[in-house]
């Protein structure tokens, strides 16, 4: 695991010095993160990097998990889908299952932190244990058009927190509590994002039987309907009519996502007729993801909804041209025609890919701009800074705070 000083060559020593200044102001406070899974998905990935770094900076930080059975996670997955605007039936039984597991967790989880930082809806009910300590609810989901019944159910808990945190301004609405904007981040020194020798990239391509004899278009994401893997294949097939190219669709599934296997089968079915489509199941193999991104000519993120879409920042950090949907946090990462191309449809995605493949100099410039944008705004060091400021904000109500 990288030490904080190792980030200095990428972001500048003064940025690291500022992080230390902030950490000093949090001496004596215990920050406790709580979520539902330690592996798979963006939340666990960020916490795995952030918790050790906060500790190294001197912020007393711990990370706890709630427990739940498959029924509970089926319900929270349904909540996740409908909050993203996907129609699904939600019954009283679903709320009952959610509360049964929540009550067990309320009994079992020791919420001892001075600041209890709860991630996503699964552990949201723990706020019933609130005492003198400060509570933050971190929403990693695109809730721009949430299912009203589920949102209303969650609001009963949200209103008990001291603050809520969202990844994009479009997810905010009038709330009875303070709300902050904190975008997630990528770790430039993780296996998924660090520089890789060419031999490693070639070896990974060889392993999966991918030959670099034609341009590679790639989407890395979980096999999840909201990532629209079938739409990616359709866009690719439109491009392939004019440009000889190949597609890589690669990703894993999270332990709290029971639907992943089903979507994977649908994608395999759709792809089986075309040998230029490579469908790769890569459970938690970060070096391989990194290698595939670096080997690509264009990277896609054609999500229908997106909490944030960190794979976009991953691609931009590798200076790759990106075609991504104009949803969730993606427009924060991609400024259309400046650091990538945004699209609203399969046809739009196909058109954008053709533009990039036919104009390599333009594609290169977009990728380079994207890398600088990520360096300034979406690296882990900025995220550490935001979280420490968020913690400090709980103790200050003013707009301008002298520390």
């Amino acid at each position, binding site marked *: 695991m990288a030490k904080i000083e190792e980030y200095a060559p990428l972001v500048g020593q003064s940025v690291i*010095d500022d992080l230390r200044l902030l950490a000093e102001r949090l001496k004596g406070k215990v920050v406790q993160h709580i979520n539902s899974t330690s592996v798979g998905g963006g939340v666990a990935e960020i916490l795995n990097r952030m918790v050790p770094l906060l500790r190294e900076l001197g912020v007393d930080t711990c990370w706890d998990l709630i427990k739940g059975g498959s029924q509970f996670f089926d319900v929270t997955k349904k909540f996740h889908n409908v909050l993203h605007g996907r129609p699904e039936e939600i019954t009283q039984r679903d709320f009952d299952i959610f509360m049964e597991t929540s009550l067990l967790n309320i009994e079992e989880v020791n919420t001892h932190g001075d600041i209890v930082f709860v991630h996503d809806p699964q552990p949201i009910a723990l706020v019933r244990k609130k005492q003198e300590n400060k509570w933050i609810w971190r929403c990693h989901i695109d809730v721009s058009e949430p299912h009203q019944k589920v949102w209303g159910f969650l609001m009963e808990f949200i209103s008990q927190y001291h603050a809520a945190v969202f990844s994009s*301004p479009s997810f905010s609405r009038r709330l009875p509590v303070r709300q902050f904007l*904190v975008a997630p981040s990528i770790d430039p020194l993780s296996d998924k994002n660090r520089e890789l020798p060419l031999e490693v990239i070639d070896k990974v391509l060889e392993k999966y039987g991918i030959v670099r004899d034609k341009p590679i278009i790639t989407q890395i994401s979980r096999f999840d309907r909201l990532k629209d893997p079938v739409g990616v294949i359709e866009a690719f097939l439109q491009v392939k009519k004019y440009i000889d190219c190949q597609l890589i669709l690669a990703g894993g599934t999270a332990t709290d996502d029971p639907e992943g296997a089903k979507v994977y089968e649908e994608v395999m079915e759709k792809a089986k007729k075309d040998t230029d489509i490579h469908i790769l199941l890569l459970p938690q193999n970060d070096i391989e993801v990194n290698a595939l991104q670096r080997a690509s000519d264009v990277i896609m993120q054609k999500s229908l909804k997106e909490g944030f879409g960190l794979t976009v920042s991953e691609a931009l950090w590798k200076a790759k041209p990106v075609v991504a949907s104009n949803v969730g946090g993606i427009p924060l990462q991609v400024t259309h025609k400046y650091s990538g191309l945004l699209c609203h449809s399969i046809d739009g995605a196909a058109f954008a890919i053709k533009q990039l493949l036919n104009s390599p100099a333009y594609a290169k410039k977009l990728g380079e701009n994207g890398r600088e944008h990520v*360096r300034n705004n979406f690296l882990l060091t900025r995220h550490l800074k935001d979280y420490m400021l968020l913690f400090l904000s709980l103790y200050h109500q003013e707009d301008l705070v002298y520390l």
Partner: protein
Amino acid sequence: MAALTRAQEPFRFYTRLHISELTGLRATTIPQLLETLRDIPGACIYHHTHRFLQQHQYLSPEPPNDFAYWVSEVLGEDMLGEMLASVDTIQYATIRDLREKIISTIEAYLDSNPTAKLKFARQGEEFHFVKSISFVLPTEYAVYDLREFADILKKITVDSIYFHVFESRLRLERSANDFAFWIETSLGDKSLAKQLSRFDPYTLTLENLRNTIVAIVERRIGS
């Protein structure tokens, strides 16, 4: 020689770190934007006129303020966008004045172009009002002369430069940027202070701003 004058009081570098607080307020039309602009906290006006400057540090010229970007890119009102982009922020000593200028610009435009009131943003492209919460902290750096000043300027964060040049002047309502003020009052170098007050920092990226100030100061030391 003025360049080697040692100040009685050092210049203490501060850094300013900010977090964005969401208001949940949004606008889908220009009249809604206008109405909300009248009531939102000054921290919102500050955020939307300075966000691009910090987030697009690599861009030269950087994109305009959020209001200008939204009315032109989302609503297609290019002329109003240009008018808002060219509001000369450096001229305004307070957020109140800046707010009034933005409001009067929009009002005048709507008076001459009433059909612009009818345009509305698509779902997902509304204007979301956000405010900047700033934390100001002293750094370990304090300097007594121009040589030390230039050396620290080269390595301090852009956030520190940002605070001393933009935020202290506008948000704390100081008459000049902090660098010019210290050089004039503590080093007595009015000519250099004038040079550091004269350029328009809003048309430079933050790194270019750093390089420009360092170059001006080093030229002075060498003279």
